């Protein structure tokens, strides 16, 4: 991951990836009626953010980008998505660490762990946490362990597409990039009139 020297540059890139996550999550949505959730391809940018910019960026992109998309159509999933997708990006970033584009092993392990954490996280929420919350707040009473089990397969496909897409994008973006230092300030060096 590049060492970002400007706090504002980091904010700008994270904001751009967050917006792109929200857009791609909303673009392709296949509802999973059993759990009231949906299949999407937004994980591509979450994995990318974790691999490219590290755990903090991964968390922000995953948590906010996906939660914004959930607000349109699936608001009940906002709390689960915020935590699960945030952790997906964070875990990817933590495991990927400072691995450059030369070695693929760590990024692949990181992306797979991130994807798996998403599948496991949603299962946890849909099978246990939401039914538990649903007893107190009816809004969350939308799923049960059986439905959560059914959703495992579409979530796994979503995770896989995120891993493959995220790794492919990350590879394309980092291919050949090395941290060359820009030389010291130079005067304008053309013809002077």
């Amino acid at each position: 991951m590049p060492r970002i020297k400007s706090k504002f540059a980091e904010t700008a890139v994270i904001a751009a990836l967050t917006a792109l996550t929200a857009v791609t999550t909303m673009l392709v949505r296949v509802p999973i009626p059993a759990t009231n959730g949906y299949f999407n391809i937004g994980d591509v940018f979450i994995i990318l953010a974790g691999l490219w910019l590290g755990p903090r960026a991964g968390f922000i992109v995953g948590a906010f980008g996906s939660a914004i998309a959930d607000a349109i159509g699936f608001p009940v999933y906002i709390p689960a998505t915020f935590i699960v997708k945030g952790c997906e990006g964070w875990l990817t970033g933590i495991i990927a660490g400072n691995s450059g584009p030369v070695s693929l092993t760590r990024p692949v392990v990181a992306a797979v762990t991130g994807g798996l954490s998403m599948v496991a996280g949603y299962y946890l929420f849909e099978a246990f946490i939401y039914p538990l919350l649903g007893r107190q707040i009816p809004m969350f009473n939308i799923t049960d362990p059986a439905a959560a089990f059914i959703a495992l397969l579409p979530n796994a496909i979503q995770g896989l597409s995120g891993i493959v897409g995220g790794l492919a994008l990350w590879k394309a973006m980092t291919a050949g990039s090395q941290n060359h230092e820009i030389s010291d300030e130079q005067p304008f060096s053309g013809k002077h009139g």
Partner: protein
Amino acid sequence: MNSAEKKMTISAFDTYEGLVDNFVQSTGIFFPKMAAGRGEFFRGFSQWLACLRKSKPLAVITPDPAQGLALPNAIQIITSALNQSGSNSGEAEAAMLIEKYGLHTQMLTQPVSTLSGGELLLLNFAKAEAQCGHVTALAACNPVFWLNHSRHKYWLNLCRHYEIQEKPVDVLILRGDQLDVSAGSDKFPPVAPLPVNLLVDAPLVNFPEIQFPVFHAASKLQYSWASGPEEIFSPFLLTGDNGVGKSIFARLLAGILPISAGRAFVMNSDGNRNVRLLFQEAIAQLFAMSPFEYLRRVFSSSRALLAEAVGLFRSLMQAMLSKQLSDDDQIWNSLLAGKACLIAARLAEKPALLLLDEPGWGLSRSDAGNLIFNTCRLAHQLGTGVGIISHQPEWHDFAASNLKLKKIAPEQVEISHEPI
């Protein structure tokens, strides 16, 4: 040369890539060379992220004037710049400032994305003046390219302002720019004219994005033909003042802007009505690909056309550069090659008309002349007409017909055919 000009340092470059490299080195602001493809873009962007260097505060006019305006409309751009300089005057001063640079106060709330190239540049001037109190210098790229001659005075006004404040002005231009005192006058031999039928029957275009959130008179534009339908000759020049609606007319003819009423089309002697367009911001048309990637992608479903387009691209480049080029030459990833590739891809399809919107942007004068001359020569061999859209008068002598656009009311543009 004016006294204000003497205070500025002018650096001239042969290529857009050389100019951009120098701009990046001097300001620390990464500016991508999009024709080099996505690998080069990400490499540059990652380097910028990792090595971002804090320079002294500078007012900048970027190689593409649209990129230098980070806020949605003029009022916000100018008040924010004024606040940087410690002024709290707000909207009244902002209005005064944009009027000083020849822009109408209506533009204060018009979205920046809907302004023409010249208007964007003038807005950059107003912003640079507003920033003057805070910054140490002004770094400006191609500061007069988008302006009509009558508006060059605004650039001099800005220089004068910086001179009074005793702040240096560094100018980066492409060789042959109007600020380049050593520039000769390159003349290209005329090409044999080709007849093209142009029909303009009061086409009306609406722009709903300009009506929101505040209504603007510029939200619709209707064109009228002053002298009735007639035959014009290629290459023709479509000219007019900054912001008159030249690019909109080109998009309308190319069929990518929907017409709400009336009609406008071009037809050649074979009844072909296909019109292709090279955008002002042609670089966006490469869709983040390098020239050869672009050709392979566009013609992935037609091998015959791919071979023809590659052949046209190579012959256009060789004619322009007058030498044999090796495949690993850097020139293939330049803006010049990007434009040549886009032109070749369009010519391979043999449209009735190829419109070139400000084809000289980002090119030195000799490169621009070479590109236009060789494009016209090649297009006419294929039976395709060429229209050049530019506010710059130097193409007047080269063109076989001259169409002039003039605003006769805020929402009305008249097109007249001026014989050459």
